[in-house]
């Protein structure tokens, strides 16, 4: 694309806890469709967004099996966004804060996620056209 941009987004929310996670993924989706490069710095609970051990589950209360429930799994959404970005000529560089990972035992992330520190966030931001910090409350 003629006007390729690089955007950095910092998030702090754990999956399933806030609409901020949804909005973040929506923004990444839009950027991926434009073929932008997207840097994501996941801090605190957000390191669990791409946690590889997430599993879909049935819903016994409503009598649905796993397939019927079709539960939203953030790690699968993130993997799909990475594929979408690549398909459109961009990429997602997802950096999990290493200390936050250790604190939460969230070591096993999906492929494409790397370990880093707040210094990476600064470097990513410096190398970007713009940065958005989606702060938690």
């Amino acid at each position, binding site marked *: 694309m003629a006007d390729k941009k690089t955007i950095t987004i910092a998030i702090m929310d754990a999956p399933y806890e806030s609409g901020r996670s949804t909005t973040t993924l929506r923004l990444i989706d839009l950027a991926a469709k434009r073929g932008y490069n997207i840097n994501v710095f996941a801090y605190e609970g957000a390191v669990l967004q791409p946690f590889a051990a997430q599993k879909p589950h049935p819903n016994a209360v409503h009598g649905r099996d796993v397939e019927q429930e079709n539960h939203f799994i953030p790690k699968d959404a993130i993997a799909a966004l990475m594929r979408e970005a690549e398909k459109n000529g961009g990429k997602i560089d997802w950096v999990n804060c290493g200390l936050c990972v250790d604190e939460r035992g969230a070591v096993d992330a999906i492929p494409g996620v790397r370990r880093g520190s707040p210094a990476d966030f600064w470097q990513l931001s410096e190398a970007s*056209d*713009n940065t958005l910090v989606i702060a938690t409350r």
Partner: protein
Amino acid sequence: MPRYLLIESRDPFDSNDTGFCRDLATQLAAAKNDVTLFLVQNGVLPARSGARSGDLTKLAGAGVRVLADSFSLRERGIEETGLASGVAAAPLEIVLDALAEGAKVIWH
């Protein structure tokens, strides 16, 4: 002209600090900046014409562009025809456009 996009994700019925974006937007607009307030998630709740929407109408009158995320409106069953005066529905692309164009984008 410097451009600002303030994103308000909180609603005044639940949070007592939504005045932050309103006050900042008012001051930035008064200082001759191009200012947009983008409401998202529960931040769209006061966009309904009625209780608490007066602050947004007043903000629009002060020169601030006030937009509400279409998706968030639909999620909450708020019809675009029922939005307060001065508030318009807009897609989330507004945020990405602002980032791509180098605006200062602040999340609250």
